[in-house]
């Protein structure tokens, strides 16, 4: 990934939670296979990690763990990288995140003008650089200071462009505004329902199971699904709890900024700004949430 720039255009979630994956067979069984070749994700930004955290909550923390996700996560090493120059679309600071990585990765990397500064943060990280030791020297305090200065600059950029924290009682504020359709309509009116915001969201976790085959034999695939799709929540008899787009639009805020926060203690949002940069209508959720 581009080390000196902000997060990649696509989130890293596809490496762990695949857009399409075969998960079952019939009548014979499909058992998850051990990962043969480990993966290294290099240059992971702080915002990317929020996506992993959300998916760990959804796929590993509950009663039923997803063995496919678990196996890949276990076999994926993460090298985090600082985000030296946040863009106007970035708002990770509003989510309590930093434009650099100090935990939840194996190695943290800072790109300076004249070289790389790395910090080993796990045993796996230590193993990763074991064979490369000759190329590295212990960092002196001057380098560490330069790193801290660079990080502080990035924090300052974010603070300047997103100076106002969200309402600390945002979940409650969203709940109370639920029936204020005018408020949500204002936010949703430029939406063309392309679903790009959900497709590029690093935290979105919805999936659809579908079977392909015939009455004798079939395979089951799990594919990413999107709550903006009109038929998303429809039940067998045809009833639909959210037939109108506005209901689905509000549901997205309920999911990410109310229920997930209430149930898991964090927002299901990384502040990466992909929903905004992808959006043809330039809908900026910062504005909507900032008004609550």
């Amino acid at each position, binding site marked *: 990934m581009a080390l000196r720039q902000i997060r990649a255009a696509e989130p890293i979630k596809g490496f762990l939670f695949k857009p399409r994956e075969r998960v079952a067979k019939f009548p014979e069984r499909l058992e998850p296979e051990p990962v043969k070749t480990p993966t290294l994700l290099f240059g992971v930004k702080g915002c990317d990690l929020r996506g992993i955290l959300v998916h760990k909550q*959804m796929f590993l923390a509950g009663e039923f763990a997803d063995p496919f996700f678990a*196996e890949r996560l276990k076999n994926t090493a993460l090298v985090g990288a600082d985000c030296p120059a946040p863009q106007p679309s970035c708002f990770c600071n509003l989510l309590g995140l930093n434009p650099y990585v100090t935990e939840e990765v194996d190695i943290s990397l800072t790109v300076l003008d004249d070289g790389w500064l790395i910090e080993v943060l796990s045993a796996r990280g230590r193993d990763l650089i074991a064979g490369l030791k000759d190329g590295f020297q212990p960092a002196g305090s001057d380098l560490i200071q330069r790193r801290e200065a660079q990080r502080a600059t990035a924090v300052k950029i974010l603070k300047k462009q997103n100076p106002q924290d969200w309402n600390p009682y945002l979940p409650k504020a969203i709940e109370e505004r639920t029936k204020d359709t005018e408020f949500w309509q204002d936010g949703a009116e430029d939406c063309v329902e392309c679903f790009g915001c959900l497709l590029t969201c690093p935290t979105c976790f919805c*999936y659809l*199971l579908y*079977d392909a085959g015939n009455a*004798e034999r079939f395979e089951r695939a799990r594919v990413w699904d999107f709550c903006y799709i009109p038929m998303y*929540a429809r*039940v*067998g008899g045809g009833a639909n709890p959210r037939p109108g787009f506005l209901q689905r639009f509000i549901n997205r805020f309920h999911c990410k900024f109310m229920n997930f926060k209430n149930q898991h203690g964090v927002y299901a949002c990384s502040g990466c700004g992909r929903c905004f940069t992808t959006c043809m209508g330039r809908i900026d959720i910062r504005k909507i949430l900032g008004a609550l």
Partner: protein
Amino acid sequence: MSNPYQPIPAKILDVIEETPNIRTFVLKPEQEIPFLAGQFVELTIPGFGEAPFTPSSSHFEREILEMTIMRVGRATGALFTKKSGDLLGIRGPYGKPYPLKEFEGRDIYIVGGGVGLAPLRALFLTLIHDLNKYGRIFLRYGARTPKDIVYKKQLQEWGKIKGVDIDLSVDSATEPWERKVGVVTCLMDEIPCDVKRSIAVVCGPPIMMKFVTKRLLEAGFPGSSIYLSMEMNMSCGLGQCGHCRLGPYFTCKDGPVLTWEQIKDIEEPFL
């Protein structure tokens, strides 16, 4: 780690025609499905996909599973082409069972509508298995016409059990009918139990659930004692895929039975 998406093959042992569009499928899964009344399973119709159903048999009967299903759409349409000897798939059980410990010593007032009697039958059979543990059991059941009544013979037999009180209604009596005519709430003018400390359990079409709940609340049942089977798109059953979100709940994980107390603040909980 086991694979939660993998269905277990289940052979159809029998198909019982309950009404013109409701059938009971008697299934023998290759492995036991250790469900408790109130929990549901994902039933695979090979080549067509999955849909959630609650078993209608007693949870004390583990080897054979019965499911009473109404034909409403694509998946159930495909299911209705299946015969004895055909293979289906099952995974589960999922969701929370009825908290039977809390039901002990109390009267249980069960209200069913149409095919909604199916999951209630699992509860009812479980209750009469240990009849001495509970107070009296009331079953109020409404169907569209006499033809649409499921478990006709069993309803007669259950009515003979001491401590069980059954009353039936039909929306319209298209053939000779000796009981009440009207929607199921017409059986609820008098509720012959101590509502403050009884349990109400409801399953049926959304409109029926709405009005039955209203009537139960008027009669004085506390919201926390009214158990409602919620119909949402429970696609994965695992509390992950997102489709069955109902307010703050994932119906598949937190339900499918929720109390009125849990859902009362949700706008239009009944679809």
